C-alpha cells in the first residue's frame, strides 16, 4: 500500500498491466519521451521500450483507428487522447468504428481498446482542453464510458478497462490529478463497472455526480451539514454501464436528488439520470430533481470559467431548495 494521487495511480496501473500482460501497449501524443503532458506515462518508455510505448503522429483519428487495428492483430492498446476535447477529431473512429466493430463483424472481431482522456474544467486550460463531452459517447452503443473520481478507483477501474474485451473510454478528472492522495494497493485489484459508490451518507437529499464533480459535491455536503441539511453523495463511477439499481435505491431512500455535471445542461448525462429516476423511482420522490450544470454555451476562456462551471454555491442552493420542496 502506498499513498497515491490520481495521476500516480494511473501510472501505477499502466505499469502493472504492461508488466503482467505483454500484449498491452500504450500509444498517443507525447506519451513516450515526455511521459505524457500530465506525466501519466512517465517512466514507461524506459521500462518497456519504444515498441510498447509509442509517440504517434499528431492525429487523433489515427491513434484510435490504428488502435482498433492493433487490437485486431492481437495486441491490447491503451490509447491516450491528450484531452477529451480533442476526441472531436477522432469522433468518427470511436463510436461508429471501435463501438461497432464486434457488431459489424458479427462477433468475428472485437476492439479491446482503452482510450484514456483527461477532461473537465477549473484549471485554466486553453479552449477544447476542458470540454466535458462524455454524454456524446453514451449514445454510441458498444462503448463503455467510465469516470473515476479517486486514486483507488482510477487504478482499479483502469485495470478493469484494459482487461475488458470491449472498448472503454476512461475519463480522467484533470482538476483532481494531483489534488489529494489516498491508499492505493500495489497489488492486483479491479473495480467493477456498473456499481455506483456511496461516498457520503445523508438522509435529506442525494447529490449525484461523477468524476471531478464528486469532489465538489462532497464540499457542498459539508456546507449543507453546517446548515443542518444532511446530504448524501453518490458517485456513479460509470455512465455506461449505469448502475440503475444503485441509483434508484439511494434516491428512493432520500426521495430528493440533485444531479451535478460539468457538461452543458441540455441532453447532458444528467438528463438521462433524471429520466431514469422518473421511470424507476417516481413514487418515492418527494421533490422535483434539480440539475446543476454548465450553461448551454461554449466552454469559455479561463477568465470566465468560474461563472460557467457548477459551483459549490449553486449546488448548495439547489440542494437547499430541493430539501425544502
Amino acid at each position, binding site marked *: 500500500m502506498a499513498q497515491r494521487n490520481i495521476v500516480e495511480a494511473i501510472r501505477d496501473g499502466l505499469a502493472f498491466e504492461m508488466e503482467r500482460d505483454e500484449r498491452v501497449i500504450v500509444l498517443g501524443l507525447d506519451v513516450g519521451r515526455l511521459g505524457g503532458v500530465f506525466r501519466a506515462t512517465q517512466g514507461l518508455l524506459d521500462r518497456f521500450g519504444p515498441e510498447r510505448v509509442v509517440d504517434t503522429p499528431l492525429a487523433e483519428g489515427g491513434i484510435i483507428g490504428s488502435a482498433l487495428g492493433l487490437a485486431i492483430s492481437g495486441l491490447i492498446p491503451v490509447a491516450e487522447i491528450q484531452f477529451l476535447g480533442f476526441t472531436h477529431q477522432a469522433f468518427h473512429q470511436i463510436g461508429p468504428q471501435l463501438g461497432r466493430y464486434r457488431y459489424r463483424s458479427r462477433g468475428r472481431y*472485437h476492439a479491446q481498446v482503452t482510450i484514456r482522456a483527461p477532461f473537465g474544467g477549473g484549471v485554466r486550460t486553453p479552449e477544447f482542453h476542458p470540454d466535458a463531452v462524455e454524454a456524446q459517447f453514451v449514445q454510441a452503443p458498444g462503448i463503455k464510458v467510465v469516470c473515476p473520481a479517486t486514486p483507488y478507483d482510477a487504478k482499479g477501474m483502469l485495470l478493469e478497462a484494459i482487461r475488458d474485451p470491449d472498448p472503454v473510454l476512461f475519463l480522467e478528472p484533470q482538476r483532481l490529478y494531483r489534488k489529494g492522495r489516498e491508499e492505493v494497493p500495489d497489488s492486483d485489484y479491479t473495480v467493477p463497472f456498473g456499481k455506483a459508490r456511496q461516498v457520503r451518507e445523508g438522509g435529506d437529499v442525494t447529490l449525484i455526480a461523477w468524476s471531478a464533480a464528486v469532489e465538489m459535491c462532497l464540499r457542498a455536503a459539508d456546507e449543507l451539514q453546517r446548515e443542518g441539511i444532511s446530504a448524501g453523495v453518490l458517485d456513479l463511477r460509470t455512465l455506461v454501464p449505469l448502475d440503475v439499481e444503485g441509483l434508484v435505491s439511494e434516491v428512493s431512500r432520500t426521495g430528493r436528488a440533485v444531479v451535478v455535471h460539468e457538461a452543458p445542461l441540455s441532453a447532458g448525462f444528467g438528463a438521462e439520470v433524471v429520466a431514469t429516476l422518473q421511470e424507476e423511482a417516481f413514487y418515492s420522490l418527494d421533490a422535483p430533481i434539480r440539475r446543476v450544470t454548465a450553461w448551454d454555451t461554449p466552454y469559455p476562456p479561463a477568465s470566465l470559467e468560474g461563472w460557467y462551471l457548477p459551483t459549490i454555491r449553486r449546488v448548495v442552493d439547489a440542494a437547499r431548495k430541493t430539501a425544502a420542496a
Partner: protein
Amino acid sequence: MQRILDSQGNLVNGAEPRLSLERTVEGLRWMMLSRAFDARATALQRQGRMGTYSPVKGQEASVVGSSLALDPATDWIVPAYRELPALVRHGHPLERIVAGYMGKVASSAIPEDTNVLPNQVALATQLQHAVGLAWGLKLQRKPGVVMAYCGEGAASEGDFHEAANMAGVRRAPIVFVLMNNQWAISTSRELQSAGEFYRRAEGYGFPGVQVDGNDLLAVYEAAAEAVERARRDDGPTLIDCVTFRLSFHNTTDNPSAYLPEGWLERAEQEDPIRRVQTYLAEKGLWDDGSRAAVEGEITEQIDAAIQAAAAMRASRAADLFENVYASLPERVGRQRAELLRLTGGDV
C-alpha cells in the same frame, strides 16, 4: 502508367508478365465470376431478395490482380465495399456474403480462420484499421501483409492522410490499393483532387505507382512487388489503379443523370475481362469451349451460393442484441427482455 496488356489484349513491347499463364487463367475465372455475380446480385436486388449492392463491373482487374499477390494463410484484406472477388478468393464464402446482402445477420460472419475485415461504408476509416493491423503484425513478428482498399473519393478524406502518414512512420507492412474508378457516385475524379494520387506516397516516405487498373497483369505485378517490399520490412506502397466504373455506384444510383455523353462507351473499350480473354486466346488457352465451360461452372457456383444463403436462418429480433458487447450490461439486457416480450419469445 504501368501497363503490360494493352486495350486490345496484346502484350506491350518487350513485356514479360510475371503472372504465369496458369494463374492468369485463374485470375480470369475470378474476374468472370465477379462479373456474373454482379448481374445476378443486381437482379436479386431488383426482385427484393437482396439489399443495396455495389457492382465491381469494370474494376475486376484491379480487385483480382491485386489480391492474387496475397497468401490467404498469412495476409489480410481490408475492404471498402466493392472487392467481392478478392474476399471470396481469400476465404469469405460467397454464400455468406449473399446471406449478408439478404439481411441474414448471423449467417454472414467472416469465418474464424479467414483474414478479412468486414466491409466498410464510412469511407477511408478502414485504412486506419488496416495500418494498425499491419503495424501490430509487425510488432508481434507475425508474418503477413495487409492489403487495404479505398476509392479515389475516399482518398479525399482526412483518414486517408492520417493512415498513410502513420503507415510511413511505422513502416507498416501494408499495400494501399486505390481504386481510381473515376466516379464517387456522381463526383468526377477531377473534382476529387488536382494532383495525381500515386504522387502522394512520396510525401509519406514510401513508393507510389500508377498502373492501368484494367490490366490484370500490370496490377498483379505492381501488387506482387508491393507485397514483397512489405514482406521484407521495406514498408508500405500505394498503388493507384486507374480504372473505370462500368456500372452504377450502387443499385440506388442512376448514372445516366450525370455521366457525360459517350463516357461509358469509351470506358467499355477498356474492358479488363475481354483483354485477358484475347491474350489467353493468343496463347491457345482460351476458346469458345473453355468459355462455355467456365461460364457453366460459375453459374453453378453462384446458384449454389444463392441457394445456400436462402436456406440459412433469417435474422431474428434478438439478433439486434448479439455482438454488441461481450456480455450485455444489465440495462441493455432489460431492453432485450422487453423486445422478446413484444415478439412473444425468440422469433
